[in-house]
């Protein structure tokens, strides 16, 4: 018995010596099926549009994004229990003209399509919160040629529930005072920073973000807050050296009141943007928030106002 085991062991070890090594990595991930992506952000007074598309497998070069045009999509008004069927209007978009979402309304959506797991979601439209800009002033130029812009906002909401506010700068324009000649003065998203401790920093290092997030924990009365942004060098240059003294710079701030789902979704998008797309065995991919049960995407309501901040 000893000799047999001895010989077998020698044979085993010699066999191992003959094994060649390999450098290629083949994934063992078994995800071969596309999932349904449902995206719908609805506002009061406007028709609700639901977009359906597929995911794609990134390791499969033959896998592509496709719009889903043959799904059964229904929306339920949870306040009235009325069910509305949405029809396909092209490029994966589904719509109905039988109703429009209202402030405070709660809605559920379901979508069934052959070859996909059915999806469903529920969300509501928050009550309108009126936003006003109470103050704006500019700081001094820094050595890098930048200039800080301080903006104070005030939100007014009658809701007793927790309200979720998100705001972002969606446009910058140079506007001539006289001839309405518009042209962009900078590219890329404008980054914001808030020193208000009630606002949420998606990463604890309080970095600049494209959106600011604030929830009021159900408190009534106006919520005052502020944010800071840096005017880019082009804009600063415009102020500093531009001889076009007749031009103003407009910043457009979109202030939104959103449902909690959309609030979490925007935060996860912000983390995704800050974190980047490193995809490795030593990092964890960012999970983008989704309230779509059985799929991906977002189904949520919001209200918004556009504030135009003039810098001159």
């Amino acid at each position, binding site marked *: 018995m000893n000799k047999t085991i001895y010989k077998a062991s020698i044979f085993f070890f010699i066999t191992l010596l003959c094994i060649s090594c390999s450098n290629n990595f083949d994934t063992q991930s078994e995800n071969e099926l596309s999932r349904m992506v449902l995206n719908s952000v609805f506002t009061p007074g406007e028709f609700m549009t639901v977009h359906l598309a597929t995911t794609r497998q990134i390791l499969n070069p033959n896998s592509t994004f496709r719009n889903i045009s043959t799904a059964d999509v229904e929306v339920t008004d949870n306040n009235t229990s009325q069910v509305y069927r949405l029809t396909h209007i092209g490029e994966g978009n589904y719509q109905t003209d039988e109703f429009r979402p209202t402030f405070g309304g709660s809605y559920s959506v379901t979508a069934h399509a052959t070859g996909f797991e059915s999806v469903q979601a529920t969300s509501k439209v928050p009550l309108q919160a009126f936003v006003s800009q109470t103050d704006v002033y500019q700081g001094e130029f820094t050595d890098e040629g930048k200039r800080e812009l301080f903006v104070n906002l005030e939100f007014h909401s009658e809701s007793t529930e927790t309200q979720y506010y998100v705001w972002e700068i969606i446009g910058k324009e140079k506007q001539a005072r006289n001839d309405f000649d518009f042209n962009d003065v900078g590219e890329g998203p404008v980054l914001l920073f808030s020193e208000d401790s009630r606002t949420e920093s998606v990463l604890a*290092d309080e970095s600049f973000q494209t959106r600011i997030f604030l929830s009021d924990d159900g408190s009534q009365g106006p919520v005052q807050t502020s944010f800071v942004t840096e005017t880019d060098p082009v804009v600063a240059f415009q102020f500093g050296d531009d001889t076009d003294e007749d031009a103003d710079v407009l910043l457009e701030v979109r202030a939104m009141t959103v449902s909690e789902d959309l609030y979490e979704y925007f935060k996860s998008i912000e983390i995704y943007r*800050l974190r980047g797309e490193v995809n490795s*065995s030593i990092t964890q991919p960012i999970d983008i928030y989704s309230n779509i049960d059985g799929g991906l995407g977002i189904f949520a309501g919001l209200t918004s106002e556009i504030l135009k901040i003039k810098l001159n």
Partner: protein
Amino acid sequence: MRQITLLLFILCLQTVVTAQSGQKPIIFEEVKLNLQEIISFVESKTDVKFVYSEDRIPLNKQLSLDTDSYSIKELMKEVANALSLDYKIKNNRRILLLGEKVSNPTEQFRYVTGLVIDELTGEPLFGATITNKQRDKGINSNEIGLFKYKASSDEDSLVISYIGFNTASVAISDLKEDSKKINLRPSVEFDEVLIQTPLARKLETESTFNYYINKKQLSEGFGFVGSDPLNKVMQLSGVQSGREGQINIYVRGGSPDQNIVLMDGVPLYETSHVFGLSSIFNADAIKNVQVYKQAYPAKFGGRLSSVIDFKMNEGNSYERKTSIGFDPLSVHFNTEGPIIKGKSSYNLSARKSTINLFYNEPIEQLLGFDESDFSFFDVNLKLSHEFAEGNKLFFSLYRGSDQFEIVNSESITSTTESLERQNFDNLKWENQIYSLQWHNSVSDRIISKLQMSYSDYTNRSRSAFNFSQFDGSVTSETELDIIATSRIIDLGLNADFQVFMNNDWELNFGTGIQHHRYDPTIKQSTVILDGDANQFDNDSKFITADEVTAYVDSKWKLGPSTQLNAGLRYNNYNVRGIEHSSLQPRLSLIQEFPNDHKLTVSATKMTQFVHLLVNPGIGLPTSLWIPSTDRLPPEHAYQLAAAYGGNLSSNLQFEIAGYVKRMENVVEYTSPFDLFFTFVNFQDIEIKFDANRDWENFVETGDSFSKGAEFSLQNRKGPFLFELSYAWSDTDRTFEGLNRGNPFPYKYDRTHDFSIAARHHFSDAFHVHASWVYGTGDAFTLADESFIDIDGIERLDASKRNNDRLNDYHRLDVGLQLNKYLKNESLLTLGLSVFNVYNRKNDYYVYLFEDTTANEDNSRFQLEEVSLFPILPHFSLNYEF
């Protein structure tokens, strides 16, 4: 006047005689005599006369005197004790031997104590087996070699055995209530007796399928850097090791922090030196190790998965020995010897790395680093003093420090994109422990152990990244600097008692208090900071916790082949004014069968009050230890296990085991800023960083369930020894906020884990060894799909958490050892080994990057793997004198 003078003379004469009789010591020429010989000798040397009846006195009974010089009273006390004799001394001249004491009919037993030691070194032998002649009952010696035995009147001798030593037989009459030393001589002949030593031996009467590995077995090195005690532990079935650069241990679905690793009873928080090439356990300094993965005694607690209990060498108390050794990674030195011969001893071991002196450049070229600096050192010191047999004081010290620094850059270029990465990594960690232990045989039935300990662990890491990406039109650069600090200070006071009720019943109980201080911090900056990491220590307050423990544990022999172990452990943990308490029952039943087969069934609960937030993958100690808090509850594990094993033949021993284990409140770190993520920022910003103490907000707690089966086979006789072990396991975790609340594989779930280690002794001067390990690759999360969001931007997504696996890991190591005994009784040992013989490029980590082609709708993603250690030869030279 004449009468008075005569009277005075007679009185003085009597006084002189009395003085001569009572005060002059009796010097024996031999100490092993029977009673008749003692009587004859005393009567020949003094004027004492013995009066006795021959049929009532055991004249032929052998005695072993403790010393060779006695007064009459001392002699009679010792003889009477040994033989249970009644006697009377009259006028210091007549000794009446009245016969054997009439004992209470119910007390036909007496308790004896013994101390089993190595005859050559004086070191106590833990786990020696003490049985009666019939070997139908037995006990083990404890960690200082002490044992208590209840001897019946019809028993006259005990058999003491220990692997690697000659068996000894001791007359019970030679043993007393206070301890007596029993010397065992190592078996020095190269024959089947010596090389019967198995690679790991189970305590023969422990019978719970836990493991005990003694010094000789620990010195049989299979590791890359020669003998490494922790490598021996990782060869056991059900004990899984980490991969390249990792020396973490995973036991039955548990994470690395769920193993309590002790050195002389003091818990350690880090057990590896740089890159996992070596553990902190110096083979010269370690005497033995016990490993428990089930049926834990109640005195152990604080972790969920295993107990690994290392004991340090006490040193040779008879003669001094020194050894020095050298290998390409380190120089090591060991010296041991007596302070007071036979009473006090010391053992001092030290290691210092030589990597940074000689091998930085070759390693940089081999592994592709631009710059590197690896260094470590450690020192072990143990002092022991024996006040009396069974009464010993120990002082233990360990200090170790590691420094690890690499600068690395990499370029990846495709037809339309290039990526450049530069990173700077610096790690420093330090361990220091101090321990004072007092072992005492308090009475004929009680042994006590009191211990004070202090431990200080500091880990500071820094990782700085610079990424530059050019996608054909735009170059974007990102920077990130992360500094993490973890410091833990523990103060402990423990008291343990071992009560020997009888040979079939042993009771253990104890209590302890521990004071912990935790200081975990992570800071980040989006630009690379100037200066050393310790410049950025902040003054954030640390967290303190106080812990009280108590336990009781009992072992009953219900019959000749059935044993029941039952225990209960209590922990009270107070942190930030919040108390966590836990009662942890421990139960195991052992049934013996013919041919040394045993079945063990056990049910245990373990509780853990500290958690490790793990740097996800690269195996360097850039992790944080955090205590349980009001928001982070303690972890609990409930395990049912069964094991069956025994001898297949005189050579082969096997074991089959199975378990199910449920764990509650396990933690996952969910912060978006793992220590190695990239940070994309489209605008330059000023230096800005802040301490992150909000780890509680980024930790998710959930449950884990693990099940598995283990098999091992070992050949323990003959010149060819081998041990084969295989484990199958399935471990998943469920967290409400992760993976949509669905279960997912645990990162370190290793479906298959296999190892085989073999050793062939061609002679006592030459042997070869080889080992092969195989394991399923670690699980990780790959973003394997993408979708278009509401803004029309493509986003990556992982369909499931831990949906992919690294390639299976396997490697072959071989080596040989040559021993040369020199004229002055010194020993020269040369070791040659090759790590990863067939140069397997095992995955260290993999990453995905996008190779955009002309077709924008069909972007190609590629998976690239990074490996660490190729084939690596190694040698070592050791000189012992």
